[in-house]
Each structure stands twice: as C-alpha cells, then as structure tokens.
C-alpha cells in the first residue's frame, strides 16, 4: 500500500475506533510502554512513527531549537502544521510523556501543553538493576491508576491477560514475517503498517505471510545484504529505497520498528505460569537488554547481538553482512557511541556505515552517494 492510502486507511480506522467510543493515546517513546494496559482499557495505543520533512521540522522551531532530534522536531511539526494526511492526530485524546530520551520528555511535554492534549506519565529508569525493575513496577501501578481514572472502572487482570495474549500472538506473527526472505522495503512496509494498526492487523499479516511464502528471494549473490541498526525508518521515509537503489538489501531491521519490537514476546511457559500481568511486564523489561534507553551495557549487548547475527549469516553464505547505523541528527542514544560502535564491529570484520541525517530533502543525493560508496566496499 502506498503512503497516502495507508494514512487514509489509518485515518478511517481511527475514526471508526473513535465512533465506537475508543480513546486514543499517542506516544513518542520507542520502548517499554505497556501498550497492552491501554488496550485492556479500550484505549488505542498510537505510536508516533511518522517520518518528517523540512516543513515539519521548521514548524517545531517555535518550541524547540533546531539542534533537537529531527524526529522529535517532526512530531511537533505534525501537531503544529496539521498536514491533511495526518488529520487523524486531531483524534488523539491523551499523550504519554515518557523519558525514552530527553527529547521524548521535551517533545511530549510541548505537544501536551501547546496542543492541549491531556497528559499521561510513564517514566523508566536509565540504569538496569534490581531496583530499576522495582521502580518499573511502581510506574506500572501508577499508569494503571491513570488509566483507571480515564475509564472510571478497574482494570482487571483477566482483561489484561487477554490483551497480553493478543499482542503476543501479533508479535509472533511479525517474527514469522521477519523470517521470510523478502526484499527489505517490502518487509519494512508491512512491519510499519502492522505496528501502526496493532493486533487488529493480525489477519492481514497472516494473509500476507501466506501469499508471500512462495515469493521469497534467493539473490544473495547479487544483493549486498545489510543490517539496519540505530534509529528506525519511519513511515514515509525513503531511506530503505535509497539502500535498494544502490544495490543493497536490508535483511534485518535491528531497530525499534523492527526486531526490537517484535522480539519482545512472552514464551508459552511464561504465559502459563502463575506470574501476574505486572510480573510479566517486569520480566519483559528485565529481559529487554537491547533497549537503547538503558545504560551502561546497551551498546555492548547490541554489538554482541549483531556479531551473532553476522556469524550465523556468514556460516550460511561465507560472507559478512554490512551494518548501516542510521543516526537521526541529534539523536543522543545512537550518536554518542557511534565511533566506538564502528570501531568494535570492524574488529570483527564487519564494515559499518554511520549514516547521520535529518529530514531535509536536500541531503538525499548526499545520502545516496554515501550508501553507494559504502556498498561498493562490501564483499
């Protein structure tokens, strides 16, 4: 589906939700938000996962300086400019202020304050230890209270289990999709659509997988296969097309919109255990060692994972994968350690392109050139 149609369908989908009494809560945070809790309360969790452009970024400068993460700038721009394709944002009832990064805090606060959207809070500690797990539980309890205030009734464990199961099945389906050997852009678009619509997309996802099982590609010799890591490629962003135009193919989306989201599934044992839904969330948080939000071991964990993926690929093909580290300008999490990241992976023979960019149209040519030059270096 092309972008205008996707957004138009989504707009229709949200309007129908609204008409049936569903509230909508949007959020910028890329991780750790317990969307199942919202779902169990009949609130639709809307991820801000839309790519930007110059106009949107410029519109944010009344609120934040231009040296702010280009994604946050664009999100503010969407609320400030209200482009017609994104009118559905007018349907947002609540906005979650979280601290995935400081731009999440600042951007979300601005959206709630200046666009008059009631605020929900959900914060996560930066350091991972036993106490941060306990703190995470406190935030879950507080979030539950905030949601119950909205729905004016209790959120029962039964309801919550139901939503947990629903999201779990949905993520498992996405994992199945991820295992198909499809061209990257095709896979990404389905992942984006699915994550936007949520579990109600399950049937379409199943159909897509069935229809494409026999259409997998076997062009390992002609395509330069790469892992995309760092910042996500958002809806309407052209980056994946640039990679393919240059002869590359993303075989693994090691990003929030991608593996990082759907790999966080519960096992059957966990779901059948006596753990309360909140225990399950804490468990998931604990196991989420690849979250870019965390310190101090995030990058080492990420590097270890990428080396593992590469080794497995190399065993099959005899070749190394390339790694494109996508850094949206002024992103704290991926920019700070990019030199170290590159240095470390290169020690393992993996070539890395640290690709920094914002959403201005003028740098498209430059991005192409850099990607082409990089892909030429790959085996």
């Amino acid at each position: 589906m092309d972008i205008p149609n996707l957004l138009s369908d989504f707009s229709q989908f949200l309007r129908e939700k609204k008409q049936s009494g569903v509230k909508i809560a949007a959020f910028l945070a890329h991780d750790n938000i317990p969307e199942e809790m919202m779902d169990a309360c009949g609130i639709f969790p809307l991820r801000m996962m839309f790519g930007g452009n110059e106009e949107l970024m410029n519109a944010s400068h009344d609120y934040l300086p231009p040296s702010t993460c280009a994604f946050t700038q664009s999100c503010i721009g969407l609320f400030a400019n209200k482009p017609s394709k994104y009118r559905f944002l007018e349907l947002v009832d609540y906005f979650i202020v979280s601290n995935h990064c400081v731009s999440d805090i600042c951007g979300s606060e601005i959206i709630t304050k200046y666009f008059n959207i009631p605020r929900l809070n959900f914060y996560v500690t930066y350091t991972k230890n036993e106490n941060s797990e306990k703190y995470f539980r406190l935030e879950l309890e507080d979030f539950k209270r905030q949601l119950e205030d909205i729905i004016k009734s209790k959120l029962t464990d039964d309801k919550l289990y139901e939503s947990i199961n629903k999201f779990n099945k949905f993520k498992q389906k996405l994992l199945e999709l991820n295992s198909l050997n499809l061209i990257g852009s095709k896979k990404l678009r389905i992942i984006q659509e699915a994550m936007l619509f949520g579990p109600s997309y399950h049937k379409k996802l199943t159909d897509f997988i069935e229809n494409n099982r026999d259409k997998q590609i076997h062009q390992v010799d002609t395509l330069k296969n790469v892992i995309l890591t760092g910042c996500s490629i958002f809806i309407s962003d052209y980056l994946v097309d640039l990679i393919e135009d240059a002869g590359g193919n993303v075989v693994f989306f090691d990003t929030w919109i991608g593996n990082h989201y759907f790999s966080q599934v519960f096992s059957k044992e966990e779901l059948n255990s006596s753990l309360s839904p909140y225990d399950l969330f804490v468990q998931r948080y604990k196991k989420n060692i690849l979250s870019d939000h965390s310190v101090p071991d995030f990058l080492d964990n990420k590097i270890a994972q990428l080396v593992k993926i590469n080794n497995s690929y190399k065993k099959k093909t005899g070749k190394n994968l390339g790694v494109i580290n996508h850094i949206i300008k002024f992103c704290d999490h991926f920019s700070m350690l990019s030199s170290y990241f590159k240095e470390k992976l290169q020690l393992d023979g993996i070539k890395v392109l640290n690709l920094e960019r914002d959403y201005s149209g003028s740098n498209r040519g430059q991005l192409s050139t850099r990607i082409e030059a990089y892909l030429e270096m790959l085996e």
Partner: protein
Amino acid sequence: MSLYADEIIRFSSVLKMSYNLIAGRDELKRKKLREKKHLISVALPFSDLLFGFPNLIPVFPIRMEVFKVSKYLSYLGSASSILGWDNVSKILGYVKNAGIEDVNKVIDEIIEGVIETLNEKYNEMYDIGVERGISSDFCFALKTLVGMHVSKMKNVSATINYSIRCSAWNKYLESLKSIKSDVTQIWLDIPPRNIGNAIELLEDNIRHALTDLEKISGNSYSDNQLREHFKVSNQIRRDYKTIIYEIGASDFYPCNPATFSEILALLSISFQDYNSNAKRYAENIHQMVDEMRERIKKGIGMDVSKYHKIMVTPMFGGWEPKTHEIIYKLGGRALYVDWDVLHFLDDIPISSKSDPVEAYAYFLTNATENGIGCDNNVLTDSYVRVAEKLGVDGIVFNQLFGCHSVSNCYRLLKDKIRKELEIPSISLTFNRIGDNIEQVTTRLGAFMEMFK
C-alpha cells in the same frame, strides 16, 4: 580582564579558591602517588558521597590538567604556606597600591590567567573530545568532559555516574568505558519520579554505590564521616546562597559587578568537587562571605543600584565567559545561580534524618522532583522562583548548542517570564568559548537597550 585584578586580590578567599581550582594538579598528584589515595572523577555537584571515605578524592577532571599560569600560583601557594593566605593577599594588595610595575604585571597575569587559562583549557578539552570522535552535535559540556577523560582518565580509580534526565549525559557516562575500560564505573540511578517507595529504592542504590566505593577505598564506609561531611556541605550551600541572595541581590557590592560575576562563575565550577577538599572549601567560602560583608560594612566596593540585575542561565554546561563583562559595560550585573535553580543548594536534610543515606536520598529526590528532573514545567517554575527571589530585571537564557535537555525549556520559560514576571528575556546561543562574541555583544546590546 585587568579590570578584575584590583578587586580579586583583596579577597584572599577568592585567591585561595582560584589557586585550589587551577593549581590542584600537584596536590592531586601528591594525594595519589605519595598518600596512595584514590582519585574519583565527578562532574555536576555529585561529589558528596565520596567524602564518606578517608581516602577517596573527588576530582572534576579538568583540575588534573597543567594550567599555563600555575607557576605563578605555585609561588603564591608556597608563600601562603609560610605567610598564610591572608598575609599574601594583603601583600599583594599593598604591592598593587604601591604601583610597582613588574609585580603589578605578575598580579594581573595571575588573576587574568585564572579565567583565561581555564577557558583555554576548556576549549582544548573540547578539541580533544571532538578528535576522539564525539559528534560535534553534542553540547560543549559533554565534548569537554570527553576531552577531560581522554586526557586524564588514566589517573582516576573510578568515575561516579549519576544518571539524570539528560539522555546525552547518560550515554556519555556509558561511553567512558570506551576511553579506558579498566577504570571502574560506579553507577547511581536516581528514579525519575518520587512515586511509591522510590526513595527507598534510591537509598538502596546509594548503598550499592557505597559498597562499590568501599571496594575501591579498601575502607568501610562510615555513617559518621558522611554525616559530618553533610554538615560541612550544608554550610557550603548556605554560604553559597548568602553570596547569591544577600550580596548578589543587594545594591552595594563588595567589588565591581563584573568581578562579582567572576566569583559566581568560580563558585559554579568549583562547587562540583569542592576543589577536592570540602572542609577547606567550606572555610574559603565562609571567609568569602565574611570578607564581602566586611567590605560592604566599611563601604568598600561599589554602589550597584543603577546596574540592572540580569540572571544569566543556564551556564553550568558552558557559556561565553565574556558575557558578564559585556553586561557590566552595558549597565548591568550578571548573576550566575544555576545550582540553586536546580536545587543543588538545598540542604541535605541531616537534621531531620538520622541516617545520612536516607538524608542524601531525600536531597537527590528533591533536586530531581523540583529541579533537574524530568519535568520542564517544574524546572521553569524553579527559574521563576529564583528570578523572583533575586528581583532580577531581566533574564539572559543561554541556549547551549546541542543541549537537548535544560536548554530546551526556553519556550516554556519565556511564556512564564512574560506572564508571571513581566520582565524582558533573551536567548543567546553558545557553542564554544570565544566563537560568537560579536553576536553576543550585539544581542546583549539590544537587550540592555530595553532598560534605558
């Protein structure tokens, strides 16, 4: 810069603090090599826990650098050890008054050097940080901190890492292991909000940090020692606030306003590690208060009632040091009060809490809830609180290039300043010391025009 020399030499406390700030290298070297003490890297005012141990020395890493003028200051340091700092100060004052040219030059060089050499060093650290590979998109503070660690991390046994709201700060801390992987990193997580039993969790995090510090120190942590230190650090905080609110807000200064700003800047930098010796720092700052009051009592100083009070903030992450001089020349007086805005000058509530760890947890929670934490609404309220308390006439907001944290609250703050304070404000962008002076001058010129 000689503008300040006349003034500063009459404050032996200022001289001492300056000396300890930039000539600390030899002392730190001695502590490490001869006395076998452990240097622990700190930044932001997070050094207090280290004083719970007899052999841990907090150091803001730039202080391990060699500063160009430290030779002269070393002479003064040597003289002070024989004559005492008060006498050195008096002699300097006398020599200055007598107009002995060569000595005069040396004195000017010393005072000028304190500021200029610090600025040069900051820029040098900035360049080292960028060479090391930190993206130029990050703020001045983080670039210089990376530079400081590339340069001197080899001398420290550990870094103490408090996670705060700024994600770039937290990731910078994570990146330190890429500079030197065998230096212990001690993490102390501050929960983002005070909900449920979050304070108890913070207490536990503090105890874990203390256990980690015990491993480095080889000594058991002492409640008594920490409690004693908190009493000292509370005294420092009270004296610091006296300088800000009693002296800074008054109409008669013990020196010219630019010098006063200079002293506030020195305090802002040195407060991060108390120049590695809290008791000495407490004595110095207390003496500073006494010297200031004494001068005011004697009518020595300057009537500043016609100089407009301008709060310049935030500057702790880097600012153009010429700002206060420019403001002074334009008829204003610049006040640097960041640590109080961020609630780092509040008392550690040791009198109401017998357990020092619990007291420290309350202190950190208060700073997070009401100052540097995750809520710009609260943070901007704190700016307004301090501006009101000082009765400032205007606010210059220092928008640090690449700062995605505190600098990003300006829009909200501007709205509050307009509605609640009804005073003018302006933002200045800052990237690197000395890079943007013409623009700063022009913008401040236009801003100060509003008061005429």
